[in-house]
């Protein structure tokens, strides 16, 4: 057909759109005539993809008008989950949903309404804006599995998480649990180019991945043991004096404590946990520390290890700091939020959410770093440093699995309504059997979707959403970077589809929110508000579309050594190797080893029954998470799920290539086919993520199976754990990797199990331990700093500010000078008499009476008018 469609014909417009099937948002040129997209191709001028498009990008046209797409709002008729629907107009659906949400809010409070989303596939700030104004803090994404805990922990330690790496000048990069060869195609091209130019690439991955095949050093560690590797690398770098002494002396605090702390974490110690030779760990540390400037590239693994995740993030932040790689040419850049265009955080209206509602956020009492307690501390520090804060959407969320548990248990309180957008929670959240049950049970469920998914089928309303080519997109890395890439829509949404923004805006107005708070009728209007300040930077444009057509990108000049001006964005303005924010939240202030969720050393009984180590969650082409399984033109590449097993182990278990096998953990079992291949250790099983079978369509009127679309059959999240004891107490990440499992062949009478349990690892079905009774992996350490000086009588020690205060006068005690100081005026007061110091005549003055007193004797200087003698001393020392 390429012969028959002439993209150069008259009347064909070229629209600068972008791909919307993963986070890269590669540039796409769409050839449009009369509101119809004729062809698409990669945009050769786009900085990300330079004309390239992967499998997913190339199927945009098939996705656009796929026969299985949902094109009209659907309202449930008949019982929940019966799969009987009627089409209703958009406005009617919106007003009915709004009415129901308002009723639930009136009866049970706004917090009984929750919102689940996926990963950067919605107009997230508008979702947050709606929920903030509605009054519920229970908004969440899959954020806790994807960078957000890393961002928060690294920001607490060093003031910003270096998402951007200055690879052009770098000499070595560690791709840590990151496989761009299957999940970031444009990135992989860059790595290949740089490697050719001499950069060293170190890959940390239990599997011989596409990226490991292109590396200089590959560390095939035990899945889940990354934290041990990071700690041992710190040990090597300190013991072999490979750290950047100047940077550490000038810009880091807590180095001596760190030194003592990591003494025990030797490569020999780590070898037991990681299965790596000590010499290999040493070589990795040396390669990274000697080839500076060097980088550690973040990979999803960091956030998917469960209880060991937090310490690993902290350790990696320390590695960057010790080697002096922060914010230097070729190092890990820390641009901070944009100073020019309007950030997502500024659009979220977080001030609208009352404090008492913030306190009700589910999970905030357990996983503090990524919910309101930790976010507030980070946001306050960021505002002091940058003037702006990171986005609350992503960085400050309810704990998703705990919300699903709250639906089932009513603990801590009943969640009655759930709005699901851009996610298929059964496949993308942990413990799928429990999640599926929650979706079946929740009183009111609305799904914003492209397809009929396992979540949509149990919904009361399914809303049709505009996809790629139908919406404008602003790409700015979750609102935490200072550049921006803008793309326009090729065509208006087909049928009755709307963008997510329009869904949230319409719903906001229908629930009674003020139209003045939602002044932008279309997404283009809202994005014009975002880009408008760029006019001052010389990017002259009168509309969002004009910005895209004329400029498309905004890249401010790169500034290195930003900390030289203001210090780092931490409470002490230094890189806090020993983190005061973590300490204040009740977490270890230094990264402390704790094993992965399940492991053979801490849980030998479990290991006896489940002797293999499972890793899941890694991306593989051509799918992104649980997407694109419905599209034949990519599904033919991998039409069935495969897990990888070492040939030696397969022989031992009598498994042949292609055999259907059960993979079982304490939570349940799934079946996938065996890919017998020496790419993993003989103790490791690598299972593909995201699998469901959308082709198993359910005919109208047919009985819906217990697990529609085979959503539990081959879905690895049946195996993952969201039990509180397995989650990271710092960031709330649940455990996808490093779990214990067993593998055996499928018998033909075997059935898929749907019985859930809470906690998931319990052998008893149903709810045995309610969430509030479940213990964390480690208890919070009470934060109770003691004064390192004697508190004078009459003053009160305050552990938050770490000062002794005169509460009556609002003065704090300066232990060095022995004076009381007013925090705002900086006037000094005498500790005993509470008289102010008057520097003009070097006397004390009673502010109430105006009488002056002698400094030494504290006797009134009778009738003496203030002398205009020049002040000889400044301050009170």
């Amino acid at each position, binding site marked *: 057909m390429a012969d028959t469609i002439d993209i150069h014909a008259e009347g064909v417009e070229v629209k600068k759109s972008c791909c919307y099937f993963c986070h890269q948002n590669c540039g796409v040129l769409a050839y449009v005539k009369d509101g119809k997209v004729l062809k698409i191709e*990669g945009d050769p001028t786009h900085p990300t993809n330079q004309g*390239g498009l*992967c*499998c997913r990008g190339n199927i945009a046209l098939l996705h656009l008008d796929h026969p299985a797409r949902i094109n009209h709002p659907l309202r449930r008729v008949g019982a929940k989950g019966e799969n009987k629907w009627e089409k209703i107009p958009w406005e009617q659906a919106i007003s009915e949903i709004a009415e129901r949400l308002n009723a639930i809010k009136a009866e049970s409070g706004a917090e009984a309404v929750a919102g689940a989303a996926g990963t950067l596939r919605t107009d997230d700030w508008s979702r947050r804006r709606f929920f903030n104004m509605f009054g519920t803090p229970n908004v969440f994404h899959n954020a806790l599995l994807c960078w957000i805990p890393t961002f928060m922990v690294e920001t607490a330690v060093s003031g910003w998480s270096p998402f951007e790496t200055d690879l052009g000048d770098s000499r070595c990069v560690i791709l840590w649990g990151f496989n761009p060869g299957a999940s970031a195609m444009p990135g992989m091209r860059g790595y290949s180019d740089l490697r050719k130019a001499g950069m060293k690439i170190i890959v940390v991955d239990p599997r011989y991945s*596409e990226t490991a095949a292109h590396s200089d050093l590959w560390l095939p560690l035990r899945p889940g043991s990354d934290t041990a590797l990071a700690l041992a690398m710190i040990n090597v770098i300190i013991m072999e004096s490979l750290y950047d002494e100047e940077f550490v002396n000038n810009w880091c605090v807590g180095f001596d404590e760190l030194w003592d702390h990591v003494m025990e974490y030797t490569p020999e110690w780590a070898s037991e946990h990681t299965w790596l030779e000590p010499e290999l760990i040493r070589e990795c540390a040396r390669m990274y520390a000697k080839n500076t400037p060097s980088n550690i590239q973040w990979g999803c693994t960091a956030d998917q290890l469960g209880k060991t995740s937090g310490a690993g993030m902290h350790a990696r932040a320390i590695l960057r700091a010790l080697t002096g790689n922060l914010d230097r040419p070729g190092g890990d850049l820390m641009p901070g939020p944009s100073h020019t265009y309007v950030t997502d955080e500024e659009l979220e209206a977080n001030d609208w959410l009352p404090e008492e509602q913030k306190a009700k956020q589910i999970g905030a009492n357990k996983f503090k770093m990524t919910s309101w307690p930790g976010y507030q501390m980070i946001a306050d520090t960021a505002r002091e440093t940058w003037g702006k804060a990171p986005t609350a959407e992503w960085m400050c969320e309810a704990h998703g699995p705990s919300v699903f548990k709250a639906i089932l248990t009513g603990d801590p309180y009943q969640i009655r309504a759930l709005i699901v957008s851009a996610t298929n929670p059964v496949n993308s959240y942990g413990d799928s059997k429990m999640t599926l049950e929650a979706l079946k049970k929740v009183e009111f469920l609305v799904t914003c979707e492209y397809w009929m998914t396992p979540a949509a089928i149990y919904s009361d309303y399914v809303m049709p959403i505009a996809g790629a080519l139908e919406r404008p997109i602003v790409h700015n890395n979750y609102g935490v970077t200072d550049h921006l890439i803008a793309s326009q829509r090729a065509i208006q949404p087909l049928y009755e589809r709307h963008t997510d923004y329009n869904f949230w805006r319409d719903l906001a107005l229908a629930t009674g929110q003020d139209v003045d708070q939602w002044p932008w009728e279309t997404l283009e209007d809202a994005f014009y508000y975002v880009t408008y300040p760029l006019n001052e930077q010389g990017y002259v444009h009168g509309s969002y579309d004009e910005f895209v057509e004329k400029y498309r990108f905004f890249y401010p000049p790169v500034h290195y050594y930003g900390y030289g001006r203001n210090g780092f964005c931490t409470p002490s303005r230094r890189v806090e190797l020993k983190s005061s924010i973590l300490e204040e939240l009740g977490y270890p202030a230094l990264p402390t080893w704790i094993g992965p969720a399940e492991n053979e050393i801490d849980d030998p009984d479990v290991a006896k029954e489940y002797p293999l180590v499972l890793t899941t969650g890694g991306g593989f*082409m051509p799918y992104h998470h649980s997407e694109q399984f419905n599209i034949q033109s990519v599904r033919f590449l991998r039409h069935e799920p495969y897990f990888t097993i070492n040939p030696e182990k397969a022989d031992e278990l009598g498994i042949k290539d292609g055999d259907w096998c059960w993979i079982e953990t304490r939570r349940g079992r799934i079946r996938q086919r065996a890919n017998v*291949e*020496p790419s993993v250790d003989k103790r490791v099983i690598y299972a593909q993520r995201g699998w469901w079978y959308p082709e198993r369509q359910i005919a109208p009127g047919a009985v819906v199976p217990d697990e529609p679309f085979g959503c539990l059959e081959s879905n690895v999240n049946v195996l993952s754990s969201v039990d509180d004891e397995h989650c990271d107490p710092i960031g709330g990440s649940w455990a996808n990797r490093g779990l214990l499992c067993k593998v055996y062949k499928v018998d033909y009478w075997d059935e898929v199990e749907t019985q859930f349990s809470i906690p998931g690892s319990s052998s008893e079905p149903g709810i045995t331990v309610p969430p509030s009774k479940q213990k964390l992996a480690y208890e919070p350490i009470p934060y109770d700093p003691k004064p390192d000086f004697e508190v004078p009588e009459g003053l009160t020690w305050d552990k938050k500010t770490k000062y002794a205060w005169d509460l009556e006068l609002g003065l704090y005690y300066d232990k060095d000078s022995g004076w009381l100081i007013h925090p705002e005026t900086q006037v000094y007061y005498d500790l005993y008499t509470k008289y102010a110091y008057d520097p003009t005549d070097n006397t004390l003055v009673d502010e109430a009476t105006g009488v002056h007193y002698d400094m030494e004797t504290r006797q009134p200087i009778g009738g003496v008018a203030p002398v205009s003698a020049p002040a000889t001393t400044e301050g009170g020392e």
Partner: protein
Amino acid sequence: MTRYAMVMDQRRCIGCQSCTVACRTWNELPLDILYNPVVGEGVVGEFPHVHQTFTPLICMHCDNPPCTICCPCKASQQDEDGIVWVESEKCMACKACVNSCPYGARDVSALDAPLHSYVRKCNFCKDRVREGELPYCVATCHQKARIFGDLDDPNSDVSKLVNGLNTNRIFPELGTDPQVYYIPDLGGVKL
């Protein structure tokens, strides 16, 4: 003279199969036809001393193509710039060329209506190429593992690569003189 050729850089190919899907959507192929599959043996060796390479396949646009000689109705033909293509109006789907091609690079779709079926094969996106653009599989390759150009132009990338590096070809011993060159991945990571 112009002689189009393609170089596959196996050092850069990661087996993502984007070219496979891109070709199929750009050329709107039926489901049972692939112009450029990516094949490989998977990971070989003994853990952790293992290795993996991918081989993207495509019509070799041979200098001595058996598929044009055997065509009874002159539908399968080669242009002066080396591009081998099938004129669908002339083709009667006798499959003589399908049988003659040692690379399995052409076939008839079973999904076409029987009387309107014809042999389909890669034509190096000749419409694009003659307008100065790259074949779509080359343009879409993120990894820049496919390089296309004029072998007779000494300044072209393909000419420099083919003449400057040790490249392989598939079944050169058959005398077809294939014009797709492979830069092998000698690979190996340090452990």
